[in-house]
């Protein structure tokens, strides 16, 4: 066993166990109708266990439960600490937000129960130190969040839910296959034994794709711009802020990062990340729903983080620098994106003129942070990421140095679009609850300050205060804002000019259009590819020739005479054989 791992103290062990278990237990108790109103009040506090664990449990502490599943191990390490910090903060604050916000919608207990289940899954997978528990919590989180996506029960949510669950299943199966391959080869299910496994293209590909689905990587990203807007605001916040990071942590845990170099895969990953960074911006600018803009922004930002993972694959020696950068970026994005999503919820409430102005202004903070403005967590995160670039082999430094600022322009445009949409948001009718706006303000404060408290920040804070760095951060924002103002000006003056409006779900819409052209058998209007396969089988089963033949064979097999003939034939065959054999 790794000498850096030590059994947790009782206090730490309790925290480690409670963090994922408490939300799940509480969710189960929601079955009892009489307890629901009380549970609703306690539910938001369960995120505290995660927060305490992130703050108080020492990295290296592990809790072994050998009788559980195939041997469970929960533990804390540097990666888990950062992840748990921002994940717990998000679930905690979004939980308080939803307490007030969801009260005005139907089925709040159902929402809260599935919220808790997803929370438990999210916490659990961060703390898992063995492959089976990781898979368990990953599955729990993914399936429970389905209920969050379809919560509104309108046509769009149900559609989004179907796309979501299909890709969840596809991703799960890919991850399962990869997990079986890895653990069989490494001979263990524990993470600390897995550095021994040698890479196998198939498992690496499955890991990249399977977790990539969750992380919103191209080309299987199209569930994201459907599911994140469809879900209620607090669910979108945790979906985009915390849950897509589960894909990232899957990569961090199971890819041989820091062990040896996989240059071709690394190149592929970096290119995918770059593509996502620009693609997300390109499609997102044309959206008219602020939540969809944020969803595409998530795709774009996760693309930047993916570049970090790619750098890790190319240059394992840099991993001690790259990993903190990725963690910092994940933290920064998670908190900022969460704040922005919750802000959408704030802006749709009934606010007085002054409150509206204040809240929109407050939203500038996370938006600027995402764009990488000076003095925000954004510049820290981007500096950290940029620090890994010079040590890359040529020609990467050159390309990345020129492309990343362009991506920053893209992010600025997205944020500008978002703020524009929020500014012009029609005032809502529902009043704002106390827990809602307080939790939001707290989150915005977290966005402002938390990143600066991390250890990585200490390294980069001086660097980020240098004038040269500030200039590098400011000029893309400047250009982005300029483009934004010009386009607003033009669209106001000349009504003919419009932004390209690609419907959310981009690739998916293309697939559906193609399938209509190829004219597959009757499919319902809101169905999607996988669903089509099943419906096709079902529909075809009643019409296709081959299935008719199968049905006929089934009926015949049951026929007495046929059986009798078979029996006779068998007997004859045996008799004949017995004559032949000595």
């Amino acid at each position, binding site marked *: 066993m790794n000498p850096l791992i030590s059994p947790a103290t009782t206090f730490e062990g309790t925290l480690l166990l409670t963090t994922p278990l408490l939300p799940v237990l509480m969710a189960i108790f929601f*079955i009892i109708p009489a307890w629901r109103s009380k549970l609703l009040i306690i539910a938001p506090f369960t995120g505290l266990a995660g927060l305490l664990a992130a703050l108080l449990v020492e990295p290296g502490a592990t809790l072994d439960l*050998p*009788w*559980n*599943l*195939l*041997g469970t191990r929960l533990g804390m390490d540097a990666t888990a600490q950062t992840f748990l910090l921002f994940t717990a903060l998000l679930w905690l604050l979004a939980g308080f937000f939803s307490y007030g916000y969801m009260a005005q919608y139907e089925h709040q207990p159902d929402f809260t129960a599935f919220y808790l289940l997803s929370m438990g899954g999210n916490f659990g997978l961060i703390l898992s130190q063995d492959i*089976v528990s990781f*898979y*368990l919590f990953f*599955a729990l989180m993914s*399936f429970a969040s389905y*209920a969050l996506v*379809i919560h509104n*029960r309108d046509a769009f949510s149900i559609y989004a839910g179907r796309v979501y*669950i299909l890709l969840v*299943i596809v991703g799960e*199966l890919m991850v*399962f*296959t990869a997990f*079986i*391959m890895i*653990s*069989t*080869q490494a001979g263990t299910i524990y993470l600390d034994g897995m550095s021994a496994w040698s890479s196998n293209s198939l498992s690496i590909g499955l890991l990249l794709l399977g977790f990539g689905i969750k992380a919103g990587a191209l080309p299987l990203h199209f569930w994201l711009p459907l599911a994140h807007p469809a879900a209620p605001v607090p669910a979108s916040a945790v979906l985009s802020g915390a849950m897509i990071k589960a894909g990232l942590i899957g990569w961090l845990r199971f890819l041989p990062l820091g062990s040896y170099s996989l240059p071709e895969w690394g190149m592929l990953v970096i290119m995918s990340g770059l593509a996502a960074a620009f693609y997300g911006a390109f499609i997102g600018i044309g959206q008219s729903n602020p939540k969809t803009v944020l969803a595409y922004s998530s795709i774009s930002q996760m693309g930047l983080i993916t570049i970090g993972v790619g750098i890790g694959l190319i240059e394992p020696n840099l991993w001690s620098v790259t990993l903190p950068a990725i963690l910092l970026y994940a933290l920064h994005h998670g908190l900022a994106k969460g704040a922005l999503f919750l802000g959408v919820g704030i802006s749709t409430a009934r606010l007085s003129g002054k409150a509206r102005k204040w809240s929109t202004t407050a939203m500038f903070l996370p938006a600027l942070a995402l764009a990488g403005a000076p003095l925000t967590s954004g510049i820290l995160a981007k500096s950290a990421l940029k620090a890994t670039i010079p040590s890359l082999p040529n020609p990467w430094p050159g390309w990345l140095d020129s492309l990343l600022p362009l991506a920053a322009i893209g992010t600025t445009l997205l944020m500008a679009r978002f703020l524009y949409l929020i500014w012009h948001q029609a005032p809502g009718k529902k009043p704002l609850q106390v827990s809602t706006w307080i939790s939001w303000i707290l989150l915005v404060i977290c966005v402002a300050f938390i990143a600066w408290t991390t250890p990585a920040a200490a390294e980069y804070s001086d660097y980020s205060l240098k004038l040269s760095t500030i200039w590098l951060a400011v000029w893309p924002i400047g250009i982005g804002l300029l483009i934004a103002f010009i386009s607003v000006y033009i669209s106001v003056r000349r009504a003919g000019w419009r932004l390209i409006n690609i419907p959310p779900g981009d690739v998916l819409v293309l697939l559906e259009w193609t399938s209509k052209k190829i004219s597959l058998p009757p499919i319902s209007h809101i169905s999607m590819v996988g669903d089509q396969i*099943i419906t096709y*089988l*079902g529909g075809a*089963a*009643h019409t296709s020739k081959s299935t008719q033949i199968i049905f006929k*064979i*089934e009926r015949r*097999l*049951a026929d*007495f005479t046929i*059986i009798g003939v*078979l*029996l006779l034939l*068998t*007997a004859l065959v*045996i008799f004949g*054989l*017995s004559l032949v*054999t*000595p």
Partner: protein
Amino acid sequence: MESFWLPVLILLSSLLTGLGIFFLGEERHFARTVLNMAAASVKLVLVSMMWIGYFEGQSYEARWPLLPGIDLVLKTDIFALVFLTLSSGLWFVTTLYAVGYLEETPQRSRFFGFFSLCVSSTMGIAMAGNLFTFLIFYEMLTLSTYPLVVHRGTEDSLKAGRTYLIYTLTGGSILLLSIAWLQTLAGPIEFVAGGALQPNDIPLPVLRIIFFLFISALGVKSAIVPLHSWLPKAMVAPAPVSALLHAVAVVKAGAFGIVRVVHDVYGINLANDLGVLKPLMIIATVTILYGSMQALIQNELKKRLAFSTVSQISYIILGVAILGPVAMIGGIVHIVHQGLMKITLFFCAGNFAETLGVHKISEMNGIGRRMPWTMTAFTIGALGLIGLPPFAGFITKWFLGSGALHAGEDWVVIVLVISSLLNAGYFLPIIYQGWFMEREDPWPFEHHVGPLETNWMLLTPPLITAILVIASGLFASTSFSPLSIVELIALVEYPP
């Protein structure tokens, strides 16, 4: 002495119960229920005694010479104990369920009489020490389950019963043929761990043919494609029958037989040398995929579950056909896991039919609001069959996948993945409909009014088995989980 009587007593505990019920009048409901539950409890106690004895090193054997060279042998090894425990445990809950289900229906005497005989036959199959004994109890199983299938006496039941009989009697004849042929060539075959057969000078092609005859014969009860058609038809039987038949007695007896033939008659090494394992794997794969594809297009709940059984039993056969202890563990532990999961699903299906008159999946909208506990049990069973942790089915899938990779049969993992996908395709929509859709029309009929969602005797069994499904997965690494026990079997069959 004890080593002789305990197996016999286990057999007699349900045999005598069956006979007793026949002699008890139809109207003696209370006495009959007491007799049933008492006998089921006694059997559980006896099986526990056998476990304790086994771990103390005691061996059990009861032997009667019937004909020269042919003995009736009851012997227990750990595999037999696993099957005994599964059968007696599930008999207990199914009896409870059946009492509740068949309330107010005619001919309960006949039903419970044959029910007990059916369980005796299963005990006999489990404890059979040689092929001949196995055959006797195997046929007894067929004969005692026929009256259960046709219990309702309707036109459909009788037709289904006839199909059932034709299939299983044909299978039985082929079994007799194979046993006779093998014993003529190789002498009386007792089950020996690692394989009893000494190939000596028996020509290999003959051994192969006999192997496939065995598989065809046992394959009828194990519902291998294309011998599976009786199973969906037998769904006209009352729910307790479907539950027991499909979880424990009939299909598992077939699978149990196949495991015995591969491991304790031929032996895995001989089977591998003969080259019969690959075809067996392919047969299993075809069944897995075919069963699931048929399940996708069924609208009747019990038919969908039946085809799911067809598919799942072949997981067991697949596990046994792959060389190596890991896959074997996966296959054999699925006997227990699938039994638990499937019986839960059938109990729930019976609840839906009995309480609300819901037989079709299209009628199941919003059933989760009306019957939340039953629907929860159903969800647990379904998610387990899809293979999600922490349910029992995940453990099976993990071991089967790992075992396949260990043995170099990587393509099996793809089969497992596709099968999981198909399982998700026909179980997730049911779960969605039950929990997330609203109900507009009234239920076909509402049969039950009371504080609980349905009769307590119908509600408790699926909850018990659902909890066991969770426990078998969650606590899989404790010493008494099905997984740990089956790992002991692997130690016997694949000595390190």
